[in-house]
């Protein structure tokens, strides 16, 4: 196979592995096509299995003939391997380098991975658009499923089925698509059952410098307004950025052409800036300096927390327009595949209790991220330790997860899932044995035949054995809209991801176990009390006290 030529030295003995807050392990290092494995061949110590795809960058150092490779992973972990022998070390390093930067998607591990578990429910079929449209149909008959993008020619980054207003025919959709960046014409994102208001998303309109307009686009979004009602357009860019976009053929909706809509500009950062922010934050978190001022100023300079605040604020605004103002909303930025999705998905978590269940959250990610064409492959190609020049990498999805974590922290009893699910999604978005996050859009995934050739993440997560790890013991379903605070004091650094490898979690794990114990014990107790009550009641109804066996 192809990998063999990349692996000059498949195994080295006497390698020492250093990981923070864990004992060092000495053992044999093996390289396979997809994994770096270190095994001490003793039952007591845990083996290291690292996906090459998880490796963000490596560094080598030599002291005499002892070589050291520092491996920095996309999940932000940093490990150190001491390898005896200069040549072995160089070979290993170059193999890791080559194997972790394979260009061809079809060489990725998901295409080789065979699950050790039986797939009971195929995750590729768990969330199909027809199903969610059925739910919508039960609430309203104003919408239809259009097949206008069946062959992905109208909009390559959209799925084949799209929910659009009933009164707008496919011909109009085609015209509207030609007026929007990348053909991403306005489609339904969320229907708010409580007041029948909707949230739509799109890409920027192609007004250009000469103020082009498109009647069909106007008609399309006006079709979602009730008579005499106004809607809101939330442009995730500042007005300045939106103005600049005109020069490149983009732009924003002119008041004159959209008189029923009020446009609001927010300032969510875009890809390069976000990637830079992540790199700076992780650098700050790994700084071992004891200077408090240095830490706080680095944290501030990374702007990560500012990004979290801005995204959450915009999501709250969208949710507010819908729930409080009783207005429909259209969200877009430039391409409609990044900040737009952050806002529409977070707004749904705020508004819709269904999105706070595990199933509902998975469905949300499927709908608003995977189907909606967030380019995972491009955005997650590299993480915080990347040395290379960034191409289109950006932690857009990680920021979304961070925002969800912030809401979860403020409403610890309102989510069926816990932090572990969010961390797991972060890991798998960057490196995974599953095919779910491969490709950039539905069309690409189809071409790669992912659903036939790889296993879906959901097939694994939704197994009862796995689900247990992600369940929030404090969960009590509620049907409320949950408004998070976006005050800086309320937004914390997500330690579960950013300090995950920089601290011992023993005490925090104990606390979590204790909490689970209290809750479980209580349930058990209530069950016992109820069963005793029943026994007693049964005995009392019988006339003579009989001995029960």
């Amino acid at each position, binding site marked *: 196979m192809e990998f063999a030529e990349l692996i000059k030295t498949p195994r080295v003995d006497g390698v020492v592995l250093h990981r923070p807050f864990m004992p060092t392990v000495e053992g044999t290092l093996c390289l396979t096509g997809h994994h770096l494995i270190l095994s001490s061949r003793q039952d007591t110590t845990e083996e290291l299995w690292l996906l090459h795809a998880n490796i963000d960058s490596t560094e080598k150092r030599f002291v005499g003939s002892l070589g050291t490779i520092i491996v920095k992973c996309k999940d932000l972990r940093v490990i150190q391997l001491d390898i005896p022998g200069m040549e072995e070390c160089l070979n290993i390093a170059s193999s890791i380098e080559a194997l972790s930067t394979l260009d061809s998607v079809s060489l990725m591990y998901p295409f080789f991975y065979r699950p050790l578990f039986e797939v009971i429910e195929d995750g590729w079929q768990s969330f199909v658009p027809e199903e969610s449209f059925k739910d919508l149909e039960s609430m309203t008959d104003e919408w239809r499923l259009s097949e206008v993008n069946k062959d992905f020619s109208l909009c390559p980054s959209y799925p084949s089925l799209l929910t659009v207003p009933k009164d707008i025919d496919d011909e109009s959709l085609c015209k509207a698509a030609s007026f929007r960046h990348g053909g991403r014409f306005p489609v339904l994102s969320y229907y708010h059952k409580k007041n029948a208001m909707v949230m739509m998303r799109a890409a920027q309109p192609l007004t250009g410098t000469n103020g082009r307009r498109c009647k069909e686009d106007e008609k399309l979004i006006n079709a979602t307004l009730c008579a005499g009602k106004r809607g809101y357009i939330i442009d995730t860019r500042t007005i300045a950025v939106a103005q600049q976009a005109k020069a490149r053929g983009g732009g924003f909706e002119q008041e004159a052409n959209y008189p029923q809509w009020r446009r609001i500009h927010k300032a969510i950062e875009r890809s390069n800036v976000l990637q830079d922010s992540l790199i700076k934050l992780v650098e700050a978190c790994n700084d071992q300096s004891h200077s408090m001022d240095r830490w*706080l100023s680095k944290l501030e300079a990374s702007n990560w927390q*500012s990004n979290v605040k801005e995204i959450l604020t915009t999501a709250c605004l969208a949710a507010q327009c819908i729930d409080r103002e009783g207005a429909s909303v259209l969200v877009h930025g430039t391409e409609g595949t990044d900040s737009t999705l952050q806002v529409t998905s977070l707004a749904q978590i705020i508004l819709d209790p269904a999105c706070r269940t595990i199933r509902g959250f998975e469905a949300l990610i499927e709908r608003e991220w995977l189907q909606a064409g967030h380019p995972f492959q491009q955005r997650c190609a590299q993480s915080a330790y990347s040395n290379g020049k960034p191409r289109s990498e950006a932690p857009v999805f990680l920021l979304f997860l961070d925002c969800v974590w912030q809401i979860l922290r403020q409403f610890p009893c309102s989510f069926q899932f816990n932090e572990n699910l969010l961390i797991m999604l972060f890991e798998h978005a960057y490196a995974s044995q599953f095919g779910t996050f491969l490709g950039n859009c539905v069309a690409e995934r189809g071409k790669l035949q992912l659903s036939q050739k790889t296993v879906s993440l959901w097939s694994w997560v939704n197994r009862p054995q796995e689900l247990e790890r992600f369940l929030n013991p404090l969960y009590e379903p509620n049907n409320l809209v949950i408004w998070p605070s976006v005050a800086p*004091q309320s937004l914390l650094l997500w330690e579960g991801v950013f300090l995950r490898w920089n601290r011992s979690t023993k*005490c925090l794990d104990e606390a979590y176990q204790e909490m689970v114990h209290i809750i479980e014990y209580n349930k058990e107790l209530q069950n016992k009390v109820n069963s005793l009550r029943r026994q007693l009641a049964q005995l*009392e109804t019988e006339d003579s006290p009989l001995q029960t066996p």
Partner: protein
Amino acid sequence: MEHIITPKVEYVKLLNTYPEKKSALGTLYLTATHLIYVEQTNNNARTETWVLHHHILSVEKLPLTASGCPLLIRCKTFQLLHLLFQRERDCQDVFQSLLRLSQPVKEEELYAFLYNPHQNEEDRRQGWEFISVANDFSRMGLSNEYWEISHLNKNYEICSTYPSILGLPKNASVAVVTGSAKFRSRGRLPVLSYYHKDTKAALCRCSQPLSGLTSRCVEDEQMLQAISQANSNCPFIYVVDTRPKLNAMANRAAGKGYENEDNYSNIRFQFQGIENIHIMRNSLQKLLEVCSMKSPSMSDYLTGLENSGWLRHIKSVMDAGVFLAKAVCDERVSVLVHCSDGWDRTAQVCSLACILLDPYYRTIKGLMVLIEKEWISFGHKFSHRCGHLDTDPKEVSPVFTQFLECVWQLSEQFPCVFEFNERYLIEIHNQVYACQYGNFIGNCQKERLDMRLHEKTFSLWPYLLKNQHLYRNPLYRRSLESTVLRPSTLPLHFKFWCGMYNHYDRGMHPKQSVLDQLLSLTQKQVEGERTMTELQRQLAVADGVLPDPSGPINTPAEQDSPSEKTPTAPVVQSNGSCAPLINGDAEEAGPGAEKCNEKEGADPGATEHDLTSSEDKPVSVETEHSKEEVHESS
């Protein structure tokens, strides 16, 4: 009452911190002790805001606006009230009254001297005796081969700001003790703060030596020698000056300073770099400005947090505490700590080291003992530092607040090792400033004695104990108690304490509280266990396994806990026969078992809740209180 010009003002607006939220309209009342704001809401519901005059830090009249006359009240509890009066006259009157009421001139004006929590003299006496520093010395194993409890200072003649009983090395003669005291600032000689039984290493405290540039004192050198000799594990002691080196050097010019290693044969000297009270006061001021910013950006907030220096100072205190604990526990070396006078930084780091070293101080009662020992009895100047009276504002400093915050920071890193939750720390903080109880009035033990506080005021501790169910940490695990805490002091492990400094900005806090959730579950658990025991008994009776002891079997268990009554034979029996049914877990076997053989190891939490039937909380809690005292005296 003579200071109240207008006792009641109507149509006062209480402005919300968040500009987008509506402000309240209501009536303002001034009483002898409180400012009370009663909000009138549409549906006839009343919300009341009570602010103790002692909690008021400052009152400020802001420039007149079109909508009225604004008054800004800042509190020592970090509450901020922004009132808007319709008439300038009212505003002025309230302003004048509050200025006077919030700054009492004489001790007798303090709330504690009029407050009576419905206790008789006997309760009062017991309340004051409830926490005893002498008992803590015995708990540490004093007196022993090396250390003894000394009454040399019983008339406060050696040191007026020290307690009457002192822990001293056995082989230090009276001449050495008195000689050393003369060589120390304000006579605060080296004495025992904490004795670590396992390592025989001791934590000692004092004030700076009067060494100046050249002076030395043989007795003081002998005193340190005696401390060193009391620990056979190590031939030297650490002497830790918690001040920055520069400050200590400046003091030398004034005839004070720090120990010269050449004169003391057996010491290793070390600076720790905690800043002085003035810097801490300014730092808090800046922190509070950050907390009260209107809609700050993340960058404003983080920059403000950094510029305040607050977390840097918290870290410096923590670093010093960790150094002491490591020395005593890991290196088995005794440590002598001082700053300038040895009542601010020294109190902070000694008490923090105690918490790191000894799990007892992480319990509800243990923290009371620690505060009583290291702060109250060793003369932390609460009256001055908290500004109880209208005195020198340069004496005010949040030294004690910083200690509480360090404990909170630890509780964030170690969620299972403290018996109490965050609310306990905040309540103590509020009470320190409230002057409702006598504990934190005065600057040292002698002053308190002269004020006859034990006769005229009540002690806070019984009140806190009575409400301890509010302050429990449901995640507390006694099994972890033997561990010495080794916190990480990397900067990123220090967090801003929103629960304290933005306590009154409820909107910033999580909307659902895990703590409340778990507290109610543990409460439910106790009820469930009681119900189960009772049901099992009834079942046994109905089955004919047990003779029918108490008439009808359907007595509701909730109202009549068997453990409350004298344990009659059948109850004991029923517990004996039922316990195995419950997973065979003796700890959780239910209330009866514990009541019958009241053993020390039993979880007092469970016992307390068992006694607390839903109807008669106060009574049963009183019972709990007296039970604690039994333990104490036995």
